């Protein structure tokens, strides 16, 4: 870069054969135009723009200080379509935050260029407040994507609800073409969802709102009823209703692609409502290829209403201990199952349950078992039945209980044979 900075030093007649001057002269004598040595200021703007797009923001900012031309390019609207605001306090996070001066500059000069925006906040309330502050200033914005992401504890929940809602509503009202919205773990409520719908119903495609305690089933139903382009939805089980599923399967609605449901227990012994099989059937008829992702965080005895009838779940995660009985029911009721992860079970072997899953869940391609027990023979049988479709097999070493047929050292050969690739169980250091 040094050479190009000043155009002055190429005028010398340099008799040496080697050295940069020689090659410059050579090139000059070959080229047709009589321009002086490479002048970076004359780099075409399109190329400069492309280069800038590869640069991380800090380097780009340094580059913008080089000359007026580069500074202009730095402020091209195209470079300001996407931005991720990182809001961290040194007292609560190890990570750096977006510089406040940069934030000011963006709001002043580029807020109407922003289209794809996300906010990453740490666990302190100040960070969430700062995010809301910025949000309420995005008046000239027409956002397509908005993501509010807590990287640690959900600090948006600690804000006064009205403060958060008014900031969010600014975006809803001004954007009018929001297509993707991620507001998990926030105090969003029914009225604000109505505002969202009133302004963005034609364009909304993705809505993620897991763990938003102030929303009611009616609130989310309003979204499903009006936003017929919705392709992906994430919410908690208490918001799920037969009406919602039917709304999502109505003729006017596009095919749903992904539905994620978190089933979380607030208190031990909580009662959960059930969803009719007919509602699930309607969903499957309407959107035959949709992914149903379910995360369960329940106590063992709260599974009563679940897995009684067929349910079209494709990705299933049990975040706490789940009983042998429930896993047995999974085999009977989840024919579309693709991925199964069990955090913990207990000390009785899951032999029968696994084999039944291999039999009935013919799409299963990924399984993970944590604190469970399976006898080695049953496990080999399971793998044999699934065969090469099992692309992900994550089993802790302790899960496999040696028996008369297989010891711990040779089981991986058998399993590898049936999988068609080398496989070992997962390990933890035993030091």
């Amino acid at each position, binding site marked *: 870069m040094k050479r190009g900075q000043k155009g002055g030093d190429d005028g010398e007649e340099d008799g040496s054969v080697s050295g940069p001057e020689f090659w410059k002269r050579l090139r000059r004598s070959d080229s047709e135009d009589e321009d002086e040595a490479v002048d970076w200021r004359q780099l075409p703007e399109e190329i400069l723009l492309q280069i800038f797009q590869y640069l991380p923001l800090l380097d780009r900012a340094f580059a913008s200080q080089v000359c007026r031309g580069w500074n202009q390019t730095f402020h091209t609207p195209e470079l300001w379509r*996407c931005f991720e605001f990182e809001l961290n306090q040194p007292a609560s996070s190890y990570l750096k935050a977006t510089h406040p001066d940069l934030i000011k500059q963006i709001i002043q000069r580029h807020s109407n260029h922003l289209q794809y925006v996300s906010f990453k906040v740490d666990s302190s309330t100040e960070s969430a407040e700062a995010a809301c502050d910025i949000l309420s200033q995005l008046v000239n914005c027409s956002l397509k994507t908005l993501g509010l992401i807590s990287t640690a504890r959900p600090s948006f929940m600690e804000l006064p609800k009205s403060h958060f809602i008014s900031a969010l509503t600014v975006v809803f009202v001004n954007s009018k073409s929001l297509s993707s919205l991620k507001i998990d773990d926030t105090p969003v409520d029914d009225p604000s969802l109505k505002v969202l719908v009133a302004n963005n119903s034609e364009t909304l495609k993705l809505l993620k709102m897991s763990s938003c305690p102030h929303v009611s089933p009616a609130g989310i139903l309003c979204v499903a009823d009006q936003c017929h382009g919705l392709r992906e939805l994430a919410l908690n089980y208490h918001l799920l209703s037969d009406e919602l599923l039917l709304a999502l399967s109505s003729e006017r609605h596009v095919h749903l692609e992904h539905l994620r449901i978190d089933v979380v227990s607030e208190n031990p012994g909580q009662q959960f409502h059930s969803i009719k099989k007919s509602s699930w059937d309607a969903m499957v008829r309407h959107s035959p*290829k949709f992914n149903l992702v379910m995360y369960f965080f329940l106590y063992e005895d709260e599974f009563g209403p679940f897995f009684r009838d067929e349910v079209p779940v494709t990705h299933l995660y049990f975040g706490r201990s789940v009983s042998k009985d429930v896993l047995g029911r999974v085999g009977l009721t989840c024919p579309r199952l693709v991925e199964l992860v069990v955090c913990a079970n207990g000390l009785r072997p899951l032999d029968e349950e696994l084999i039944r899953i291999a039999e009935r869940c013919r799409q299963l391609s990924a399984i993970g078992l944590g604190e469970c027990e399976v006898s080695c023979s049953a496990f080999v049988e399971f793998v044999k039945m699934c065969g090469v479709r099992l692309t992900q097999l994550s089993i802790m070493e302790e899960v496999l209980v040696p028996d008369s047929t297989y010891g711990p050292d040779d089981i991986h050969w058998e399993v590898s044979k049936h999988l068609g690739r080398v496989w070992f169980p997962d390990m933890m250091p035993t030091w």
Partner: protein
Amino acid sequence: MVVNSVHWFRKGLRLHDNPALQEALNGAETVRCVYILDPWFAGSANVGVNRWRFLLESLEDLDTSLRKLNSRLFVVRGQPTDVFPRLFKEWNVTRLTFEYDSEPYGKERDAAIIKMAQEYGVETAVRNTHTLYNPDRIIEMNNHSPPLTFKRFQAIVNRLELPRKPLPTISQEQMARCQTKISENHDERYGVPSLEELGFKTHGDSSHVWKGGETEALERLNKHLDRKAWVANFERPRITAQSLFASPTGLSPYLRFGCLSCRVFYYNLWELYMKLRRSSSPPLSLFGQLLWREFFYTAGTNNPNFDHMEGNPICVQIPWDHNPEALAKWAEGRTGFPWIDAIMTQLRQEGWIHHLARHAVACFLTRGDLWISWESGMKVFEELLLDADWSVNAGSWMWLSCSAFFQQFFHCYCPVGFGRRTDPSGDYIRRYIPKLKDYPNRYIYEPWNAPESVQKAANCIVGVDYPKPMINHAESSRLNIERMKQVYQQLSHYRGLSLLASVPTIQEEAEPPMSDDSQASSSTAGQASTPTSSPHQPTPAPSTSPNSEPFTPNSSPTAAFPGAHSQRKRGRPSGPPKPTEFKSQAHQPSQRI
């Protein structure tokens, strides 16, 4: 030429299998064994009283053994760079020997000492005996980078020559040919310090579980082998409630300090196996414990940032929470979860906990519940755990927090369920948290769920006599799984290697927002599996065998932000009173033992 030798003990606190010491004796007229210690900094080093006591006992043991050989141990107060020039002159030293230290800090310190020795005309002899294998050799055989999976590591070890056979212990005859001049005031000048001298108040409690020293180590080795022979079973024993308690045949602290040679352990196991099984060669799994140790030493030897997240090429950058109050509760066993609190209490009182207990508390602190950085946990272990050393401690913490080596973050340990399954009797809890001893088994792992009558009958009210649980586990684990997923989904190389992280989502219409940092790989993060294809198509999972190396997460350089280092804070739990606060200096604490 007269040879005056000095053997410098750091780890390797033993007279058996000590080639460096043998080299010191070889043809020497005088030999002196030194250990260098700086009591002034003892208080500020991150070393707790149990570790100091273990070290001092090991030094006493060495001194006793050397006395029987007409020599003594010289404990020299000060820092090596100040001490050695003085000693070189005073004792006319011509040869300096010590055991090789593979850790980056050790290598740097030793390089400086070797250079200084050269300047004084002192020859140096270094021997590699703290590990079974030479870490550099393993790295060489793995395409010049340390293996990042245990299976790969085992595969390479399988191809290596067997570890060198251990040497016998120093004999009377060997020592007789050399002399050690002991002065009248040896004890004053060079005696092993007491805990008081280092600034610790001991309340005359002499009943501690792990006694330091080579003598104890060798006795335990015999008992350990006897027990294996009696059980005639070399498989990894399944954990029982009894395993949680300190075992009289446990060897890990002795291996860490070098009171027991790892090769002696290795070959003893080998011989026993051959005797009992009458087979040709033992499986690698027999040496599981030893090989894990080797694995971490190898992984850390060329990485000075191995014990940090920032600047560590193998460590995933995770947005941990900075919460000193929560950290203190964990470190001091006040979380309100008896299983966690009992483990941390045992750790603080005795200095050793079972490896499954380590998994439980490490998971709880980091990705399981509190979402606090593994570096904080590592420092607490460094202070309290007898067998913790730089490589193994940092490596294990990274492993357990899914920051390196291991990415299946769905493997979570429940602070209630895991404990209950491990020890249904609850005896472990009752032993280390006596306040809860009258709780019935049904509630002892979750006393907050016990009805008031039960709490009253047990004479321990939750919230008054014993803390309430500091978090809601279901809620925390839900949040944390989400956080881990976010982190892993952004690492595009990980796609398909980790369960849960590859759950599909629709593609954003443009590239996802560019952030401040230069994670160039984040530009590909939005590309999840194509949504319109059949959901039954598994996410593109390369059939990666665990044998193949995972990507390194920071292959795209992270922007070095000016001032990034100064932002990094090092919290310290308020443990037992220490003279000075832990210094926030990055790499070289003033005293490492």
